[in-house]
């Protein structure tokens, strides 16, 4: 289990994370989302022991990760822009990862075959998606207990995204790995994540089990006889509301049956329940906290 306790990090005078707390259970696929500059990459670097917070700790099963090789041997961090030189080839990277990890070369070569990559070609000649696939293959081959991926789906075509998602699910189920993915591709995260965390204003604004959260958020389009005002919905736990005369679009939190029952009491002409995606939920969450307005 990963526990982040009262973690704060700043770059000079700029506070990036402030007293952040988060708990990630083992063997989950965790989606870390937030707007640009929210601190996702910084959090992942703190979680992989690259940075040290000014305050707080990142604990893996009770052990602090910072400068702790015993913990770090179970972690693989794949940044959004991993290092390679103009003439680094795929096979050159193997020796580096073999130095630090129990590297499964057979699995690596199998993945390289699946992704149709050439190990003798300089990585510099690969497309962005191919580079990402190569590093994903390296990451998977180290069989990490904790895999941290920054901007995992960035630059991947739909087919490559699908392949990556399959491999991540396989890694989680076959090797009981915990996977933490930061991404702006919320649709992809929704497909594979068990849990999520939204970073906003230097802290975790919302987190939990994705399915549970999605089951607790409902979007409705409601038509009334007469024009209505927002005050009518004052008692509701709402994430979003848009009123145009008699028509109301509203996103509410709570038990579906109870919420629907309470809405019916307002005597609308029509209540339509609309499906809501994780991406929408994220937008409403950050809008609610003062962004995008």
């Amino acid at each position: 289990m990963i526990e982040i306790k009262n973690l704060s990090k700043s770059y000079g005078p700029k506070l990036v994370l402030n007293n952040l707390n988060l708990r990630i259970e083992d063997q989950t696929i965790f989606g870390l989302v937030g707007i640009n500059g929210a601190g996702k990459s910084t959090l992942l670097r703190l979680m992989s022991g690259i940075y040290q917070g000014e305050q707080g700790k990142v604990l893996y099963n009770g052990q602090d990760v910072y400068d702790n090789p015993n913990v770090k041997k179970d972690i693989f961090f794949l940044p959004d822009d991993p290092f390679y030189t103009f003439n680094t080839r795929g096979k050159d990277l193997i020796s580096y990862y073999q130095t630090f990890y129990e590297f499964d070369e057979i699995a690596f070569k199998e993945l390289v075959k699946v992704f149709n990559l050439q190990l003798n070609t300089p990585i510099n000649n690969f497309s962005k998606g191919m580079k990402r696939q190569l590093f994903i293959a390296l990451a998977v081959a180290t069989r990490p207990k904790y895999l941290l991926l920054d901007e995992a789906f960035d630059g991947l075509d739909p087919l490559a995204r699908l392949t990556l998602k399959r491999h991540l699910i396989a890694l989680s189920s076959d090797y009981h790995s915990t996977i933490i993915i930061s991404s702006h591709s919320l649709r992809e995260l929704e497909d594979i994540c068990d849990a999520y965390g939204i970073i906003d204003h230097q802290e975790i604004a919302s987190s939990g089990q994705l399915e549970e959260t999605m089951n607790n958020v409902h979007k409705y389009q409601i038509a009334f006889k007469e024009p209505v005002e927002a005050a009518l919905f004052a008692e509701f736990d709402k994430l979003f509301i848009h009123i145009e005369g008699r028509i109301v679009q509203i996103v509410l939190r709570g038990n579906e049956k109870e919420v629907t029952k309470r809405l019916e009491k307002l005597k609308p002409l029509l209540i339509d329940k609309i499906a809501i995606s994780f991406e929408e939920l994220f937008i409403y969450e950050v809008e609610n906290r003062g962004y995008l307005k």
Partner: protein
Amino acid sequence: MKKYFIYSLQKVIWPFSIMFVVALITIILPELATENYYFVYTAYDESISYSINFPPIDRIIVFLGALTFVVPVLQFEFSKNRRLVDQYYSAPISRRKLLATNYLVGLLELFALTIIFSLLLIAVVISKPNVYDIGHFFLIIPFLLFSVFVTYSLNCFIFHQANTLYDGVIFMLFYVFILLIAYQTVFSLMPMEYFDGPPYGMSITPFVYTQMAFMEFIMPPVDAITGEPISNLHRVLEYEWGDIVDAISLFVLAVAAVFGLILYAPKEKVERAGQISNSWFGYKVINPALIFMTTGLLDMDPFIQILIPITYLIIITIIYRRTFKVHWRDWIIPLSSYALGIGFNFLRNFIETLYIS
């Protein structure tokens, strides 16, 4: 750590081979054409001139001296690049072991080159007619190893204080001159009879120290008058105490630098990679110090007197801040140092006139 040590050794094979070939081609191979290493008597206009055909120890010293600046860059470049920081600092190795391994591998690389080229040089000298006391030639190995250790260790520490590769190189170059200039500044206030010039240890790099010591011990191979080979062992035994103190000071400083480098590793803020280098060992202190000292020491045409420090001040402040639009606050310290330097210059000249009168 063992696995990383082996990996790091494998990584330096290429740079090592390149350095080896460069030195072989530029230093050792041309020496094979040399006929002998002894006095050459040339009769000219009924007079006799003497010349000594020295082996290229100076070139080996320059070559190794340059490498003690290049190898720290190669070994510690990983901490100056954000992408490399991600790769190395997320790896399951403690920071101290990471830095210690990189330091050690670089030192071994330099030691290997030092020993190989010293032995090749000795072999070349032995293979030619010469009048040297070859036994003493082997002293070049400990002398050079000492210089390599001191300069490389100090440079590793200094380079590591910077946040970018370029700043690291500039910092190392700063330290080539800073001690010498500081020494000159302090002694410039004293009467000339007390000022015997800076000791070897403070001169540019310990390689100068090695060069001079080596020349003193070994290079005068024959008596200048009789032309007979002389033993130099007594020169080693009679080595001046001041020089030994210098050597010990440098050694202690180098050991402190290595400990500082490795022990401080867990406290390092690697997120500063690529940022402005704000270390107390860098621009922050050295810039004003150098501006103050150069302004205080220069006694030239008033135009040049103003031009040199001001040009330096502007260039180095722009390099430090990495912008031409330097904030007015960032000019305060360099300009104050310049003003203090001018004040110091007046004071020094005033004291000198007192001595003269």
